[in-house]
């Protein structure tokens, strides 16, 4: 194996993932505590990372806004 090949990192890629990344754990807990939001959350990757059910991003954004949050939606590279 040549050095270049050796330095390549073996990874698995998950494409088209929709997720919420919160600033802190209590905020993620608050989101999960809301029944309307929780039904669109598929699961939790970590204390601050929640996976969104496919196709439910808009519903989540609307509900968060309704709750008074100001989520930043990242659709493309910044």
């Amino acid at each position, binding site marked *: 194996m040549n050095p270049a090949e050796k330095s390549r*990192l073996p*990874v698995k890629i*998950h494409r088209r993932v*929709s997720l919420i990344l919160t600033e802190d754990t209590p905020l993620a807990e608050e989101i999960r505590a809301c029944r309307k939001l929780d039904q669109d959350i598929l699961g939790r990757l970590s204390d601050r990372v929640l996976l969104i059910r496919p196709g439910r991003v808009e519903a989540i954004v609307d509900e968060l806004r309704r709750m008074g949050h100001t989520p930043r939606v990242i659709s493309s590279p910044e």
Partner: protein
Amino acid sequence: MATLRADPWQERLEDVLAACDVAFLRTIADHLLRARSHWPADDLRDRIAQALANPPLVDRRLRDLPTAAQRLLQVLAVNSRPDGRLSSFIEILAAVDDSPGLEALGALWNYGFLFPVERPANKRWRPPDLVAETLEAWDPRLFVPPPVLHRARLLKLDWPQLPQHLPNRPEIREADGLEFPIRLAASWQIVGTNPLRLTQRRDFYKRELTRLRQDPLLNAPFADGVIQPPDLGMWVIDWATALGLLIERDGTTEAGVWRDHWQVPLPELIRELWCALLEVTRWCPERGWQPARERPNPFAAVYPLALALMFHQPDEVWLSVREVGQWLSQHHPFWGHDKDGEPWAAKLLLGVFFPLRLVQVAPAADDDWLVRLTDLGRWLAGGRRPEQESLAELPTMIVQPNYEILLLRQGLAPRLLSDLSRFARWQSIGSACLMTLDADSVYHGLESGLECEDMLRVLQRHALREIPENVMTALRTWSKKRDRVLIYRECVIVECTSAAELDEALRRGLIDVKLTDRLGLVAEEDRLDYRQIRLVAHRDYLDPPERCLTFSDDGLELHVDVVRSDLLVEAELQRFADPVESGTKGRCFRLTRSTLRRALSQEWTIADLDRWLLQRAGQPLSPAARVLAAPDHSLTIRAQSCWVVRVAESEIADGLLQWSSTKELIRERLGPTALVVAADNVPRLQQCLAEVGQHLVIEFLP
């Protein structure tokens, strides 16, 4: 001179020529080229396209057209757009010439001066038979090649001359042209906050209509107005939709995007508004909001007719609004040659053209008004360009410590209107306008693509005084609040095999955000440097979950298939199992009493675990794991002293169970050849067997 946007139309011309019926192409060639040779169709198309861009040739052919067709082209030339509905063309023809217009339209087809905007789908195109029945069912958009319209402007035609008047007082008024741009900007904000639902007939629901009729911003009185048009709120919404500032999607009118025409000087924006006004179909000055029409809106023809009529009067001449209205209503077929004129003429000229800065107004006797085209109006109709308005960013606002922005109209430019509308909320529209800043409006600004510094820059550049410190601090605080919750719509998660490799990926800049010890986020897959990674597997988030776990023989270890696993598997596994050193077998998780009890003490139940494992491992929780998961003292397990009687064959066991003497001594059958006997009964069993000549061997196992 106003420049018509030619490029897209040139492409469209080539497209429609390619779709033309060959016989019709030859008709055009006969009229336009006076062709004597029999050229192939492709040659004909090229030659026709070239001829339409040849000014001397176009001039000669224009002179050959019937007068009605020439006048139609001159009216269309003031439109700043070369397209329109067939019905409008026919109405203009009827207004500018007493003879039937169909002959003139036929001439325009035959000279190649009129084409359909939409290329026919499955058949070669040729001009339709223009009978009334056809028009009822088919009212296509047509266009005139822009070079033809340019030349048509120069034709010397006799236009009707209206009586000239002088104002009875020297009070000449010209609007600043900002009334509609400000309202359109406000409509973007209003609809962005509360989208409007549409009925199947593209009307608004009653509640929405009431809201629009009562909206204080959209219906605010004109700062320098003569007449307020009817249903102003609905008109602005329809206009903004035609302009692309609002969009209709899935039965709802929503906020669209700010296009480039908001980055130009005001006259250019007004020209765009004029072009879009011709697309406003649900509102007219005469009756206001009227979405359910049986016939096309006649004002699509009236707007250019009125502008052309005034443009072809001598410069600086004042015309009576009443007389302009009389001419239009007497000649336009919609009003059936009404000799009295229509009250809508005042709404049109004073309620639409005046605030749009197309005409100046002055008072006349008998409660009438006089109008004449402004420089901008003349430019729009094909005259000389007015003096270029500066794009320089003039100070025109005062930002106050209570987060209010006082806007003075003198320095307002379209760019500033669009920038402010994105992050400040409109409060009132008048000779000075008021906007406010709050967390929500700043959030919308950020969502529209602005950064906090962009907003501060807009305020600083246009403010007459220094921005109060508390406003700047609040703007920064509100902007930061947005970063508390980030939502990635479609990102890429990179899963590394170990925490050390994820750290290495971070060090190399392959990962934007570290999510867990082995997962990193990349906002866009295009940014992933494939030269630095080796793809072990990939998976689409939308794919359904697969079986990717296998139980070990002891039923307490779960091995993860890396190729089939999805993002959630390991996150969820960790809720009831602990990761163990993977070694060469890949990632592995172990079920222990503490991990299982931990899961059960939270929201999991045994049924949930069974369901989850059936989906991911193809089998429910293993028996061993069930024993571990059982609550303290919940299982009944007894140890009892008894003897196991083993026989060589199952028939012997059957016999002992059937024989009445021994049957009552046997407590339970453990298997085909094993029976349980209570310790007290062993001597009796021994005795019974001895009676039939058999011997019971007593053995004590270690």
